[in-house]
């Protein structure tokens, strides 16, 4: 039986999360098909056909799929799922929104946020904010799964040449309608795809300081910028910067935590980073327990001098 991967895309490009999800699918064995559900998504479908290790691209192209409304995408998945042993989506906000809806319609208990594949029916997933790892075995005939993208190394985005097949989608449910989107504009790398992340916490004291103090460091390192829940709750930065149990899960090569104390729920979002640096004035802060390199001191002095030092 084949495995279906639900692509994360914006109708133009395929997001890296798709490549991690294909990597997870490869561990299950069998052919891999990728579903691109969207509107005027030809470019995204073409990009998907290049993904290494994929044997077919299914494209469902319709106006009512363009904004990825859960009701419409889930109905499409239900129509397709019967032909597959597994349906996988990345645990992105889209994947988390759509997959459980499809699972319930199929009478399947979804397996959320897997971090390892033990066999075709047994998976490892973090629970309690990553403070425990559960190995679970599914008894359902079709497995619906969301994938923790940081746990699987992305497959190559190019090299493949999978054929593209058009499929039809169920009609618009009419239950919900897209109104508007406020996308945070940034020239920086995307948080979940970045090699280096510079994050700020409550210690930054204001949104202004993220700009004045932290941005030069992120610029110097070519880094994405993130934040702790405390900084987002205080209104310093937008919600999509949040790294943590309920925000984004990241695992860059280098994570620089500035003025972040290290609450359990924040650590849950970044502790799989390869190298962690912490800058904090409180030497007892829990962030130092996970940091490879820590500097104790006033961030408003340390960060600018770090930028100077990096220029040398």
């Amino acid at each position, binding site marked *: 039986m084949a495995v279906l991967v639900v692509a994360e895309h914006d109708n133009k490009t395929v997001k890296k999360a798709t490549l991690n999800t294909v990597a997870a699918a490869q561990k299950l064995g069998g052919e891999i098909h990728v579903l691109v559900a969207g509107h005027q998504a030809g470019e995204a479908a073409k990009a998907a056909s290049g993904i290494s290790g994929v044997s077919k691209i299914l494209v469902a192209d319709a106006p009512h799929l363009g904004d990825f409304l859960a009701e419409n995408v889930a109905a499409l998945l239900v129509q397709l799922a019967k032909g597959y042993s597994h349906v996988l989506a990345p645990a992105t906000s889209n994947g988390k929104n759509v997959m459980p*809806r499809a699972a319930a319609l199929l009478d399947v208990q979804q397996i959320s946020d897997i971090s390892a594949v033990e066999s075709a029916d047994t998976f490892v997933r973090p629970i309690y*904010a990553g*403070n425990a790892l559960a190995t679970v075995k599914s008894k359902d005939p079709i497995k619906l799964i969301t994938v923790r993208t940081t746990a699987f190394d992305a497959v190559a985005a190019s090299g493949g040449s999978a054929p593209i097949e058009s499929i039809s989608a169920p009609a618009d449910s009419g239950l919900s309608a*897209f109104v508007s989107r406020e996308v945070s504009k940034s020239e920086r790398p995307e948080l979940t795809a970045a090699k280096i992340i510079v994050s700020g916490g409550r210690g930054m004291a204001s949104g202004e300081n993220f700009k004045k103090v932290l941005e030069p460091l992120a610029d110097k390192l070519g880094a994405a910028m993130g934040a702790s829940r405390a900084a987002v709750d205080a209104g310093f930065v937008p919600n999509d910067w949040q790294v943590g149990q309920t925000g984004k899960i990241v695992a860059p090569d280098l994570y620089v935590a500035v003025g972040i104390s290290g609450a*359990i729920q924040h650590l849950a979002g970044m502790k799989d980073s390869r*190298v962690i640096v912490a800058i904090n004035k409180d030497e007892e802060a829990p962030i130092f327990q996970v940091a490879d390199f820590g500097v104790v001191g006033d961030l408003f002095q340390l960060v600018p*001098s770090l930028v100077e030092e990096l220029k040398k």
Partner: protein
Amino acid sequence: MKVLVAIKRVIDFNVKVRVKADGSGVETANVKMSMNPFDEIAVEEAVRLKEAGAATEIVVVSCGAQACQETLRTALAIGADRAILVETATELQPLAVAKLLQKLVEKEQPKLVILGKQAIDDDANQTGQMLAALLGWPQATFASKLKMEGEKAQVTREVDGGLETLSIKLPAVVTTDLRLNEPRYVTLPNIMKAKKKALETLKPEGLGVDVTPRLATIKVVEPSKRKSGMKVADVKALVDKLRNDAKVI
């Protein structure tokens, strides 16, 4: 408009969980339990709808052990009007909970169901979406703003790229994100009042729902610990380490 809110009793978010030595799960004996933080936001939102005149009655539901009564009493103290406990000793997984809630929704006929987006124990993030699916209702997950507009609701959602606003037809299911509201502290007079509010107890069998788990937990282990790092004296030493030891810049 009647609002139904579903809540879960979980290990308090401040407790450091410990994995049991036999790998069967995490230690829950003698551990402080509380309402799942996202569910507290759900209760608060319902109470605010009532205070604003948009909701007339708030029914709060929990599924699980008898001790969930305490959690329901907390929700009643925040301002819910009455409570239903679906009592069972069986481990409940999201699909089973969604099926139980579906039966209660069919009975209670609310216009709106609010749930937390995920429980901080199993981190599944499924129940609200599953309930919406079973009912054939629209869903708006990860809500940071909820505005009632007659027979529709306008919901702003926290998504990966920023914020997204949807218009959904009622009846509907909404799941809460962190910034929807800040739940109030319960006051002693309200705790006293909550004791007098109605709390009904039902059983899954009575609702005709098979709650047998579909996922078997084989084992639960602690994640491997990061080996502890070092403190360096200054940024010069830090840059040296990053360049020459870790080789990440």
